[in-house]
């Protein structure tokens, strides 16, 4: 195996992010249990803790799921995405605590194995009102465990980004299971409209953001351009590309980021090798295209990361003529150097 494990590289931003996250979780639990004890004086500490942990995990999952589409819709939210995996792992651990306490509270005192009891204590699968909701939570927790266990870059490199992203898309299945777990579980006995209203609003927001982002991406893909006889496709005017930025175009089914920098134009794949982030939404920093998600860098003329890094993305042949940019939609192998197209500046004669 060529991929070696390396510990998480901590920096100030990650520490601040995690401190805010852990503090927020602790504050939420304290407020939930404190207010719960006041409003429901007969509730036991165990019950308050189980409910506090469950609602906290569900709230965290909503935040995790909102970050992705928010970043697709507005780059202002990109700082939230930088450490999203820590938020996801925290969601799993809070959910795990909820599951363990629930199993101890409701299944540990019988003569059956508590885990077996989760699945056989209620078998009324034909009834919606009495549906066994606990197995739904168990399977959702299993998915969150798989995601948390493979969240490190070690697994990202081993599995490759497309496989890793595919695996982590199971989070949508987990979310569906959890909505059903809550609806068919606590909402069957909870008469207060507060929890049902909060879950309904959260669901509408999460699904609304994802559907909006997905169909916006679809519109961008639908605008894909096809090549002419000479294989080069006119993608935009040079002036339409901001300096040290890119114009993202869809060519032959995939997206290409066309960068303008220092009087040159280069085109590389829009898909970062790290987590498939959108390179075309990043900018050229220190001569390198920098991914907006986690800061992975590539040389625009070769698509290769500067030494000692080894990531590579495909490049595309590009030329500039008459103030227009033309790109050959056939990708070169990752890391192939392509001579950048020169941008001829218009010279303005000033008469005295």
């Amino acid at each position, binding site marked *: 195996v060529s991929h070696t494990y390396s510990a998480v590289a901590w920096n100030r931003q990650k520490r601040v992010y995690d401190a805010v996250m852990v503090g927020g979780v602790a504050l939420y639990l304290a407020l939930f249990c404190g207010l719960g004890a006041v409003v429901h004086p007969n509730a036991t500490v165990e019950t308050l803790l189980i409910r506090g942990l469950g609602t906290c995990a569900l709230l965290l999952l909503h935040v995790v799921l909102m970050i992705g589409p928010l970043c697709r819709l507005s780059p202002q939210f990109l700082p939230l995405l930088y450490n999203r995996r820590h938020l996801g792992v925290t969601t799993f651990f809070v959910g795990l605590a909820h599951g363990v306490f629930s199993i101890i509270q409701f299944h540990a005192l019988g003569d059956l194995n508590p885990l077996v009891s989760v699945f056989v204590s209620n078998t009324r699968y034909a009834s919606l009102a009495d549906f066994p909701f606990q197995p739904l939570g168990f399977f959702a927790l299993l998915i969150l465990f798989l995601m948390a266990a493979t969240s490190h870059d070690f697994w990202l490199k081993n599995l490759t980004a497309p496989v890793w*992203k*595919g695996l982590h898309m199971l989070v*949508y*299945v987990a*979310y569906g299971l959890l909505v059903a777990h809550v*609806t068919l579980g606590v*909402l069957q006995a909870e008469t207060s409209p507060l929890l049902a209203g909060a879950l309904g609003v959260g669901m509408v927001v999460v699904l609304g953001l*994802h559907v909006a982002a*997905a169909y916006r991406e679809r519109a961008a893909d639908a605008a894909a351009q096809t090549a002419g006889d000479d294989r080069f496709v006119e993608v935009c005017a040079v002036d339409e590309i901001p300096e040290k930025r890119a114009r993202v175009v869809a060519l032959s089914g995939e997206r290409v980021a066309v960068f303008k920098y220092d009087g040159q134009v280069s085109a590389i794949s829009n898909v970062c090798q790290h987590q498939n982030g959108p390179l075309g939404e990043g900018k050229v920093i220190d001569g390198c295209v920098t991914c907006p998600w986690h800061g992975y860098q590539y040389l625009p003329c070769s698509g290769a990361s500067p030494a000692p890094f080894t990531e590579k993305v495909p490049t595309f042949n590009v030329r500039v003529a008459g103030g227009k940019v033309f790109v050959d939609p056939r990708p070169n192998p990752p890391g192939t150097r392509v001579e950048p197209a020169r941008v001829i500046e218009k010279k303005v004669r000033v008469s005295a």
Partner: protein
Amino acid sequence: MTQALRQRHRTLVTALALALPTVFLSGLLVRQPVPASGSLPTALTGSTPSEARIAPPERSGPPESPVAVRLLPGAGSATEAVIELQTARELSAPDVLVYWSAAEPEAGRLPAGATLLGPLKDTQAARFALPERAASAAGRLILYGLARQEVVATLQVPTSPREGGAP
């Protein structure tokens, strides 16, 4: 993301956008009404005396005539008598077995040498053949609670068909 992943994402979120609101609304619609204090029967909503205490669960002491015993003449062979036990009400002890014994039970324990006749079911008549030695020796029927491992009741064996079996 690659286009394939974008398509998968679009498919997943579209499916969720259709399925989840359906599950959510269906779940809310099938909710059973939770009994509130105002909807409880009058017997349960009456005021409770301030000194009221919850009675401790009843232990299985000798019940008040829970079982009627009847001798069935001619039901058995010449050397074998048959009795019928009929429970008058639900027994407070689970898993009751019927024994015949010449000796009295002591401290709620089954005497050594007691003969097992069979199980006794709630509100069902059960017939048992007495052992041969019951014809020559005086004895009694013992109701033994298997679950709690204790004697529930001792019944006299009737000597004539009309005789009852109160303890």
